[in-house]
């Protein structure tokens, strides 16, 4: 029974791994550089495994979610800076995801986009208000599994497997190295999405994990995120096999679905759209809660996704306000795909602000007793500290120099 539950959780995690950032960056990286950047996805996926395992372990041993730990460790001032940057990125991501849901609904129904933005917003509100969280997680996680259609499509498109294999070997591109680096940074940012980690660690605290759950934490982190990364490969391969040779730059969410439609026809298109709808819708809900978690944890309010709204009033108001703000921003007509690029790049910039405190806490015996980072966690943790610092420092210059990946 336990294994069955773990398996269900993993399925939901795979379906929930991909969000709009992964969709946009993996497919356009494929369309621009073929399979050359697959190795970066591997680095990104291992990175999110390392980061989320640490956060899950901190949650299990000390009972502290990310922004509890951040504030305790670096104090009010630096913690507030981390909070503000996290919330700005969070709102950008949320806006992009809500817009993405509306685009999917439009592609499925053909109704006007503006109506569908409102329908998407109200739909998310109703789902979050009336559905118990266990169900939200399952429905969106399993729905997101439709994205596996991209794995089938990737095979059906008959990519040159030699070139795919070569893509897993780290290398630098000779042609347009700046753009190549921009995509590398974007792929890392898209894979190591911090809101997923905030969400994950808060869930651990809510489910009252203790040291006995550390094994579960490791399995969740490794298999859930690891297999989720498999979908990222599939997306990039379809991007490479379909768009690169035809010289198409997928600027719309709709063009991403071509990756499944061309090899598999109508059914491929339908599965891709439903998969994207659930994956992006689920990510919107996770992002929404993450924003409320961060604020509530930083200020010491009641919080919790398993609690009824009246059990955590200000937490509830926070997510409601975030949803209304995001809805307002989508209604201004901002392009969700373009916004996703900015959100991913800025999230890469902000990543060290929460990663560093968590890394310090995970090594602190007063919090972690005998469960501090082991040698592997520390070697990887330090390595990724270097990686994300380089990424954070180079992200904005690359964004400017490549004109948001356009040149």
């Amino acid at each position, binding site marked *: 029974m336990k294994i069955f539950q773990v398996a269900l959780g993993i399925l939901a995690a795979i379906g929930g791994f991909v969000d709009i950032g992964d969709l946009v960056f993996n497919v356009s990286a494929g369309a621009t550089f073929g399979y050359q950047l697959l190795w970066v996805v591997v680095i990104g996926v291992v990175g999110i495994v390392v980061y989320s395992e640490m956060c899950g372990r901190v949650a299990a041993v000390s009972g502290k979610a990310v922004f509890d730990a951040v*504030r305790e460790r670096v104090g009010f*001032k630096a913690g507030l800076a981390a909070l503000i940057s996290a919330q700005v990125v969070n709102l950008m991501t949320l806006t992009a995801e809500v817009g993405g849901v509306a685009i999917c609904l439009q592609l499925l129904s053909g109704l006007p986009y503006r109506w569908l933005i409102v329908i998407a917003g109200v739909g998310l509100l109703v789902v979050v*208000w009336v559905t118990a969280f266990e169900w939200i997680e399952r429905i969106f996680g399993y729905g997101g599994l439709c994205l596996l259609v991209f794995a089938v499509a990737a095979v059906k498109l008959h990519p040159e497997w030699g070139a795919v294999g070569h893509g897993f070997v780290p290398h630098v591109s000779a042609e347009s190295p700046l753009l190549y680096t921009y995509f590398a940074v974007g792929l890392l940012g898209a894979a190591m999405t911090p809101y997923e980690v905030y969400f994950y660690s808060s869930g651990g605290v809510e489910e009252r994990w203790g040291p006995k759950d550390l094994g579960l934490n490791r399995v969740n982190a490794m298999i859930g995120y690891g297999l989720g990364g498999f979908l990222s490969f599939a997306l990039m391969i379809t991007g490479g096999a379909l768009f690169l040779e035809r010289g198409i730059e997928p600027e719309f969410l709709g063009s991403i679905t071509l990756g499944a439609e061309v090899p598999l026809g109508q059914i491929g298109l339908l599965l891709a759209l439903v998969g994207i709808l659930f994956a992006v819708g689920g990510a919107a809900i996770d992002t929404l809660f993450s924003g409320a978690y961060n604020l509530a944890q*930083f200020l010491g309010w*009641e919080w919790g996704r398993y609690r*009824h709204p009246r059990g955590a009033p200000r937490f*509830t108001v926070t997510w409601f306000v975030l949803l209304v703000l995001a809805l307002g921003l989508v209604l201004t007509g901002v392009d969700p795909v373009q916004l996703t690029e900015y959100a991913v790049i800025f999230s890469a910039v902000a990543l060290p602000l929460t990663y560093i405190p968590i890394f310090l806490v995970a090594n602190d015996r007063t919090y972690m007793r005998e469960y501090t980072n082991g040698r592997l966690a520390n070697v990887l943790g330090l390595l990724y500290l270097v990686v994300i610092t380089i990424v954070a420092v180079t992200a904005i210059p690359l964004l400017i120099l490549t004109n948001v990946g356009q040149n």
Partner: protein
Amino acid sequence: MTDSIDLGLNLLDHQLLDAENRRCGKVDDLALEGGPGEELELVAILCGPGVWRGRAGLIGRAAAWLGGGRRVRIPWDDVAEVGSHVKLRKRAAELGLGRGDDRVRPYLDKIPGSDR
């Protein structure tokens, strides 16, 4: 309670839990008493937006203003335990904590499904 605690690392900025384990704020600052040469004594925990003013420059002041500027003083005698969280002996309402949540709750109660 342990014999000695590091006020900076083990107390400041930690979560406050009231007698019913309700999350009701953070240890935003500490009040110490005792002049130079005298014994320094921790007399109270300070909590609330008014305390942020002194902790983060201009942004701290802006946050304090946004939060309404209230500050609550919790006598050290009302602290039951300092562990992973800071546990208090009384209920939040008695200490004047968690008022924001209490104020918002009646509005949420009017919406169907708020106590599902």
